[in-house]
């Protein structure tokens, strides 16, 4: 029983380590400056305020950041997942010469680390005239190798009778995909959508490079600008801004954590 007690203490300690910084963030965001800059620290704010959020919102165009992040995440996820699903379907169900080579060519893209492509992609996007545009932010990221691989592997496990029956009923390929194959692949589809959306929302280095005006920045990049503008002397404002960036993801995680945790581990383990 003594072992159990120790285990519970460790478990509580682990929870504290991961919650501590988040509590520090949230409490500072609603503290008056006087309470932030006080030692020993004020653990529970006496004088709640929403003022920090207003200061952050006024210091940088957070409304634009929100719109941009949302557009990029939604459009980027839809296009990338569509690419994955269509490519995977073609490789699982259609004939084509040199199909194997083509598939290896797609998988090979996983060997190219994203960070290595930054400079050439910047130059390519510049020559397309896409700097500081949604196209420049979204298009370079919609090629899909890993998600294509996951979807194809899943399609090949589906019972052949079902797709055969659909074809006998006269359904074309796209109809079979939409009506039969996709509904049977819902868990894998959720996995792929979750992984993609989280990546798009959190993407930092590409939006940093490819945008150059405040109106086109996304939330994570906007946060860097807020921090640089406020210096490190105004933690209340900066923490409020940080909370604005994190809040949507935290809320989604709270309600859909089962799918997110499941999706990301599934994705990693299947690969």
């Amino acid at each position, binding site marked *: 029983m003594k072992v159990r007690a120790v285990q519970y203490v460790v478990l509580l300690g682990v929870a504290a380590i991961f919650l501590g910084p988040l509590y520090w963030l949230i409490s500072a965001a609603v503290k008056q400056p006087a309470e932030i800059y006080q030692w020993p620290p004020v653990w529970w704010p006496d004088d709640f305020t929403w003022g920090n959020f207003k200061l952050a919102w006024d210091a940088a165009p957070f409304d634009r950041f929100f719109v941009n992040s949302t557009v990029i995440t939604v459009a980027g996820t839809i296009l990338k997942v569509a690419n994955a699903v269509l490519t995977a379907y073609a490789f699982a169900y259609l004939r084509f010469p040199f199909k194997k080579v083509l598939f290896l060519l797609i998988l090979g893209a996983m060997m190219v*680390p994203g960070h290595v*492509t930054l400079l050439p992609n910047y130059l390519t996007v510049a020559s397309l005239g896409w700097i500081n545009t949604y196209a420049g932010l979204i298009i370079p990221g*919609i090629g899909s190798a890993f998600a294509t691989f996951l979807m194809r592997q899943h399609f090949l496990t589906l019972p052949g009778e079902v*797709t055969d029956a659909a074809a006998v009923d006269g359904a074309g390929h796209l109809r079979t995909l939409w009506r039969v194959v996709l509904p049977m692949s819902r868990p894998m589809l959720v996995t792929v959508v979750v992984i993609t959306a*989280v990546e798009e929302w*959190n993407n930092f280095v590409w939006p940093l*490079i490819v945008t150059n005006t405040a109106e086109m920045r996304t939330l994570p990049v906007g946060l860097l600008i807020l921090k640089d503008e406020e210096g490190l002397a105004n933690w209340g404002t900066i923490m409020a801004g940080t909370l604005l960036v994190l809040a949507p*993801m935290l809320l989604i995680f709270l309600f859909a954590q089962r799918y997110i*945790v499941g999706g*990301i581990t599934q994705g990693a383990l299947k690969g």
Partner: protein
Amino acid sequence: MTVVDLPARAHPDEVRQPPGTDERRRRTRREYGLFALLVAPNLLVIAVFAYWPIVYNAWLSLTDWNMIAARPTFVGLDNYVNTLTDPAFHKTLGVTVAFTGLIVAGSLVIGLALAVLFNQPLKGRGLVRTISFAPHILSGAAVATIWLFVFDPGYGLMRALIEPFGAEPPDWMNNSDWALPGLVIVYLWKNVGFTALIYLAGLQGLPKELDEAAAIDGAGTWTRFRAIKLPLLAPISFFLLITTVIGTFQAFDVIAVMTGGGPGDATTTLSWSIYNEGFQAFNAGRAATLSIIMFAILLVVTTIQARVMERRVHYR
């Protein structure tokens, strides 16, 4: 990754023998056309934004270009010679290896320890597991900003943790001895919950019989863990090792927000110096050279992974 090469299933269109060969040829053509239509957009984006950059980098690495002049000047292998003999580059490599090594070791050891803890029959373990995973899906830039405040020597959470032990809190991010360990702490805090979850899935998938048999033979908990569970988890450890190395080599947002490669060059990793040379110093040739070097290093890592995975599949 294991590519299980299942043959594509024949669509009944192909199985049903069409009446004439003309009809069959038309069907085949239509199928080829549909295939091309479905695959082309993906393949095009991959070609332009994943493969072309390697060729482009290779070319740029042989040139000198400030990205303003009309065209790059060909300089042969100068960039490689200059880079590989530059003490600053050696320092960068050292920092990158230290950063990666600390994070790989930390995340595997702590991740496995957490997984073992989460595998005990404890009330609330599911909740703590979820809490520890949450930082993994949060924006790296935002997590870094939180930790800048946590590390604040005057009013940060760390001061409250360190002072009771009678020690003076360091000025983490402005101190060249503490900045790198500070980044490692942040990176581990963000990602160790993911490692733990993967290890937990591995632990729960282990066959119970071996463990039970060993227990009957009188093997203690630690012996069973070391002699049975740890070796059986080796494939998962290997997978995590490789993916962590690849991820950490490209770590950028946490460094960009917290240190910008500083103080001095104390946290200048290969990934930061690619950004710095390309987008702050506008030295395209140098940035491309560093990119090719990073690509080569990670290619070796992924090739080792592919080899090992292949062998495992063969011996099974």
